[in-house]
């Protein structure tokens, strides 16, 4: 299961991040690291990107990027 599979209102724990380079670093710099709780707040009006709450703030990312973030059930 990935972050991209979760629906608005659902939450999960990050297991791993399956990408490399600048994108992976950016994801981690923004606080999405293994073990952190992420909650989906909503999707954008046109269906993509999505908004999540992580470490007490709101972050947006594309579904494509969210699908690289592996989750486990909280």
């Amino acid at each position, binding site marked *: 299961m990935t972050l991209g599979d979760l629906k608005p209102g659902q939450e999960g724990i990050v297991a791993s*991040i399956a990408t490399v380079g*600048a*994108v*992976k*670093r*950016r*994801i*981690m*710099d*923004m*606080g999405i*690291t*293994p*073990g*952190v709780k992420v*909650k989906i*707040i*909503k999707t*954008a*009006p*046109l*269906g*993509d*990107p999505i*908004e999540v*709450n992580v*470490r*007490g*703030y*709101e*972050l*947006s*990312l*594309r579904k494509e*990027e969210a699908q690289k973030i592996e989750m486990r059930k909280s």
Partner: protein
Amino acid sequence: MSVTIALAGNPNCGKTTLFNELTGSRQHVGNWPGVTVDKKEGIYKKNKEAVILDLPGIYSLSPYSAEEIVARDYIVKDKPDAVIDIVDGTSIERNLYLSLQMMETRIPMVIALNMMDEVEAKGDQIDCEGLSRILGVPVVPVAARSGKGLKKLMEAALSVAENHQKPERLRIFGKELEDVIAGIAATLGGKDPDESWWRAVKLAENDEVVTGSLGPTEKASVKALVDQANQCADGDAEARIADLRYQYISKVVKECVKKAHKDYVETKSDKLDKILTNRILALPIFAAVMYVMFACTFSENFLFVEGLLSPGKWLEGVVGDLWGIGADGIVSTVEGMGASPWAVGLVASCLDGIGSVVGFLPLVLVLFLLLSFLEDSGYMARVAFVMDRIFRHFGLSGRSFIPMLMGFGCSVPALMASRTLESDKDRKITMMITPFMSCGAKLPIYAMFAATLFADQNQTMIVFSVYMLGIVVAVLGALILNKFAFKSGASNFIMELPQYRVPALKSVLIHGGEKVKGFAVKAGTVIFASTVLIWFLSSFNFSGMCDMEESLLASIGNGIRWIFVPLGWGDWRASVGVVTGWIAKENIVATFGQVFGGVSDEMVEAVMAGEEALPAIGEVFNRVSAYSYMAFNLLCMPCFAAVGAIKREMGSWKWTLRAVGFQMATAYVVAFLIHFIGNIIF
């Protein structure tokens, strides 16, 4: 002796507000060398010895953006006497991540815990003393907006600077990894052990910039150790180190922050956001906001009231009138002194040149007041959030929407608005295609042709189709540039959506003022010089002053007209029109009025409004070549004022020339296709 204190922190942490509060109006905005990142410096209001430097807002000291590289190079190489690290108390975990990275450089620093008023309003508590004890860095609670705690903050920063009080190195990477990093640092050697340690951490993180700075022998000698670092981190030390920093932060936060609610709670901002980015309401609200912004700046029928000027247009008129009166006064004084006609002409053209810079200032000011209001309030991030889905197809981000929309009013402020784009690639592409949006000054050209050659057709549709052509070419241009000119840099959209806040009026005003000043100084010279040059060419030939028909410009027109034969209008008069259009696009109509048989000024005004035809242009143009001419002037190099804005924002002549070259080539190809295909059909 003066002391330099740098402000560092995440975007939206209140850094700019703090900077404005500390320095007041005594600030200077420049550019960091080689990149389009603002460099702001100011002097502390209460102590003239303290210089305050505002570093760009960043989330990390990684090497992936120009802002991050500028900030970390400054901290590591230029070494300010102290850093004030601004931490937004409402999202303390993410903010402390940058703090930890700065502590790794062991620069003397103080943490300013900002937005404490909001933290308290939420019912949360942060133990500043505890935080300070654990991190080994002074922590001062502040509320930058109300100025609370700033005196204490500066006292702490000055004391840390004076005593060179370095933060202790935190042992957070685990023994195994620390040992490897220490090994790398020892191999690097160097005079400054702190710098070696920092570079060693960066090498373990596979930092491209630091790795690239090594000589071949150094690279070889650290390679084994870097591999070892990766090994003890299951193959990816960069990820492990980021993870370890956050693990440490989580522990610190657990100890020092008491949250009123354990789980996610909806704030006022979240409630507002539910409306503003609502599935159904988002797009209408967005359209309304954009309309208001556009109308405030450019509309001549503001709020649908016929003839009511918008604040931007009104101010433009006032400034233009005042300038006109002043300039006329100067010209008649010079005439009265008995100066020769060429001297009078020179003075008049210089004043015109300055006038065209001055004339843009009101538009730039009004648009930027509105833009910085949207930016500071947090809505700009939502614009990108809403529009990203559409713009990613063209390889751009949702933020490109604003410069492109503003392009329909005037390219100058539109180009300057491209600075809000985060990625360098997006910024460059947006600047190259924004002039394709048909600006207000191009409308008189279409009006002239529509009234003259398309009188029996639906003239509105003809004009509308030119506007649509601009949009289509802009989209295709973005796709082509993305594919062929900018290969690298996969775009991403990992972006903070900050809390909505009422912007501080002071920041908005300072920002607007800066933009106006920057445009006047940086773009002004380009505009001034080229306006005077074209004046000279159009009023002189080798035997002295003359009419435009016999001028050097006419000779040049005759010399270059063959270039335009494939476009259907290989005539010197049409060619001269293109050139005078670079001063201001509406000049084309005035030039035609002159070269097609001395038409009066009132007549030119009427032609511009599309009320009168100019039958003489039928000598040169038929419908197809007229359309080709409109397309060419829509797409080719914009006016000098816009080129000046491109130069200022690109920060380099090389990129400015590339942009202009791209626009000229596009204009030529499109106009050629119109002429070629048009002649087959009609």
